[in-house]
């Protein structure tokens, strides 16, 4: 708990009461993210520049106060939750775009800008910021970096860390460091890659220099419908094997198709076992060569039918459908756990089928979404937290999915992070030596264990 003196000092550090929340009711609205975890912070501060973040962290270190960084609060693994009190540093009001350099194809931003703000700002230059997580309309760049967020275009363009040129970070000591292309003469090692994906446990990202990508002149968006989920998975593996690299390959299963159709009313096939969304981009000649190859592979894998978006409106509608997938499932059950396992591409079809089997075995609903091109599966386990049996079955199913993924040579998390949710599986996924090494890295950055303290490491 914080005392009056702490609150007074923090208020002073952020520049007034407007930038601090410490009363009961509004604090409750910072007790969640998009996961199933809850926890009340003792205060929330909204810094508006790097020096403030630095002074806040110096003070929290001095006073032994726990700190949790937060962006938009769309984390799916509980990373943005103050699970043991302390303060939340909410970065979303540090949201200025500092510079756009179309010639160098870079943008320099504060950590609280949303992914969408960036896309809007660079659009008129014929550029995009390639990582496009489904939460892009609201999630912040700081949160994207902390989770190393992937996006739908990830198959071809990579994920967040492939587009971060340098960051400014405040360490738990309050010290400000710059990495990559932002490095000055005093900085020694480039820590960019270490910090990307560190889930807010090593430092608070305050600014980022990002690389932009030219918008490709030609885009074709296709959908194919399957009466068997495994066929859709095999189709993806075959497309890759053929040498075509689409920007996107997303699979939705029947449960998802129905939930999304309920919201979007696009006329998606409610009976289909799977829908595969594929996008290819490039020069017209390139794209035109790829389309027939892909449709050939659709046919070979028993696609019931396939379709090509006729115009930008149709294309946007499909994307809206895909982005609403996670939200739309809320209608079915009050609670949901989104898994994030990754398997090698040639195991995708089998993994999709095995997840369905696990759902049947435990009698629960699992809606399957997959960033198939990366072998990244998002089984959405739906349940009612008020029914103890449901909770128990979901837990068993989770365990089994993880074990299955590891058995197929896969990993725990592609992009949503370990957070609170997957800590218990860390010892299964990593051996003792690896975990010990990770702990020593954490200790080097945060010897007092105050920054996002109970996350990630067991």
């Amino acid at each position, binding site marked *: 708990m914080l005392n009056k003196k702490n609150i007074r000092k923090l208020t002073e550090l952020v520049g007034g009461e407007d930038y601090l*929340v410490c*009363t*009961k*009711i*509004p604090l*409750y*609205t*910072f*007790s*969640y*993210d*998009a996961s199933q975890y809850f926890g009340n912070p003792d205060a929330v501060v*909204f810094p508006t520049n790097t020096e403030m973040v630095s002074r806040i962290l110096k003070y929290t270190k001095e006073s032994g106060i726990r700190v949790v960084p937060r962006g*938009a*609060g*769309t984390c799916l693994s509980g990373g943005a939750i103050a699970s043991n009190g302390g303060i939340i540093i*909410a970065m*979303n*009001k540090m*949201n200025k775009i500092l510079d756009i350099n179309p010639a160098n194809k870079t943008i320099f931003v504060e950590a609280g800008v*949303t992914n*969408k703000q960036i896309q809007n700002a660079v659009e008129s230059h014929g550029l995009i910021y390639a990582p496009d997580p489904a*939460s892009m*309309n*609201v*999630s912040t760049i700081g949160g994207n970096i902390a989770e190393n967020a992937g996006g739908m275009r990830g198959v071809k363009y990579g994920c967040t860390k492939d587009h971060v040129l340098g960051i400014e970070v405040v360490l738990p000591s309050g010290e400000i460091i710059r990495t990559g292309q932002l490095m000055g003469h005093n900085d020694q090692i480039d820590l960019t890659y270490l910090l990307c994906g560190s889930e807010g446990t090593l430092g608070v990202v305050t600014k980022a220099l990002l690389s932009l990508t030219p918008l490709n002149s030609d885009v074709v968006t296709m959908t194919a419908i399957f009466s068997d989920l495994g066929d859709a998975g095999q189709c993806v593996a075959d497309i890759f094997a053929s040498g075509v690299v689409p920007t996107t390959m997303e699979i939705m299963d029947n449960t998802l198709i129905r939930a*999304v159709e*309920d*919201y979007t009313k696009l006329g998606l096939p409610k009976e289909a076992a799977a829908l595969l969304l594929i996008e290819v981009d490039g020069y017209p000649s390139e794209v035109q060569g790829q389309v027939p190859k892909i449709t050939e592979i659709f046919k070979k894998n028993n696609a019931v039918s396939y379709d090509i978006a006729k115009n930008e409106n149709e294309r946007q509608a499909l994307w809206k459908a895909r982005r*609403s*997938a*996670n*939200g*739309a*499932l*809320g*209608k079915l059950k*009050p*609670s*949901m756990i989104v898994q994030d396992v990754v398997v090698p591409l040639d195991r995708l079809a089998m993994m999709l089928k095995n997840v369905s089997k696990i759902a049947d075995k435990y009698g629960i609903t699992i809606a399957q979404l997959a960033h198939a091109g990366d072998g990244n599966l998002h089984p959405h386990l739906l349940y009612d937290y008020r029914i103890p049996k449901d909770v128990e079955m979901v837990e068993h199913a989770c365990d089994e999915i993880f074990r299955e993924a590891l058995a197929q040579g896969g990993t725990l998390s592609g992009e949503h992070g370990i957070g609170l949710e997957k800590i218990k599986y860390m010892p299964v996924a990593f051996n003792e030596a690896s975990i010990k090494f990770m702990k020593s890295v954490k200790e080097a950055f945060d010897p007092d264990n105050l920054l996002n303290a109970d996350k990630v490491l067991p």
Partner: protein
Amino acid sequence: MDNNAMLETILKCNRCGTCQDVCPTYQVSGDEFSVARGRLRLIRMGLENKLDLNNEPDIDTFINQCLLCKACEVNCPSSVPTAKLISDLRENYTKLKGLPIAKKVLYRGLFSHNHRLIPIRKLTRFYQKSGIQGVLKVAGVFPSINNLIPEMPKFSVKDRLQDIIKNIPNPKKKVAYFLGCSVNQFFSQVGEATINVLQANSYSVTVPELLCCGAPHQSSGDIEEFKRLAKYNLEKLSGLEVDAIIVDCSTCGSILKEYDELFKDDLKYKEIAEIVKNKVVDISVFLLEWGYKINPNNDNKMKVTFHDPCHGVRGLKVKDAPREILKKIPGIELIEMKEADMCCGGAGSYSIFHPKISRKVLERKLNNFNDTNTSVLVTSCPACMMQLGYGLRNYSIKGEVRHLVEILAEKL
């Protein structure tokens, strides 16, 4: 909705955060307690008895700060009806505690008896003309209302009906015009324009004697009064032999279309409400469907932009019709503003009771208007006209706010 049904509905929110992108109060504040997701969290805690919603003064503030603009609802992948939940909650609160005194004076005292708005208009006009506007503030009940109220017309629409209504021989269609309180008293030029445009296009117009549609009562949770007004209006409207009921106030229009929902447990009125609902139509949609004429020689150059009233774009679901009409008018260039469908912060009496956040929402709208470099901000709801007009005056922004029908009337 009862508490259980409310809870089940709220549980559909899986906290995905999508609403942050569209909720105006979040967009201007960045505060999680000012977004649908946060409001739902607080309501959920209330319903789960972790908070006493009725006795937390803070709760009242956070929940009542919702503009009921429905932007979250139409964009929520889980279709959580946040605005509806909040109105229901306000209804329960009002049942329990009664209306706060200022709202009682404003809604029950004035809007429920719309003839009482007459002296307000006359007095206000007197004060405006005599240059002692500050006097209104002394009334104390609504300190900021003075700035909000537009230049008062000398006569209400009703005062002048006898002169305006014409006999149209062989009309193309027979319509009733739902003359809302605000148009009648504060924007009589809009009401006159609506009638003139309709008549000039050979539609015969009757203007039935009605009561307030009930919007202010609904949004403050005064459902008992809302029902009384609705019943009266339904009985009058259903007795008319007309092809359509025309609205030029998006708020009135969408409220009229919600009467069936209000009477979902009252078969008799529900049935009437459904018949009326099918006849209520926004003037722009009606004109596009049944035809209208424009004087091709009157092609004064004018750059305009269009602001979608919440009750228009999300209530009546009217988005394209006014734009199509504007684009076809010779001389007019329509330039879209950013976030055209984001609430202007007026939301009825919202700006009176939540001045700070309302101001921020308004400033955002005005900036978007400024960026278009147009001189006319066209819209189709008097509540927005009041708020936007106040904004332009107060921030000394060049330009004027006009209702779509005012422009049409000039181009006859």
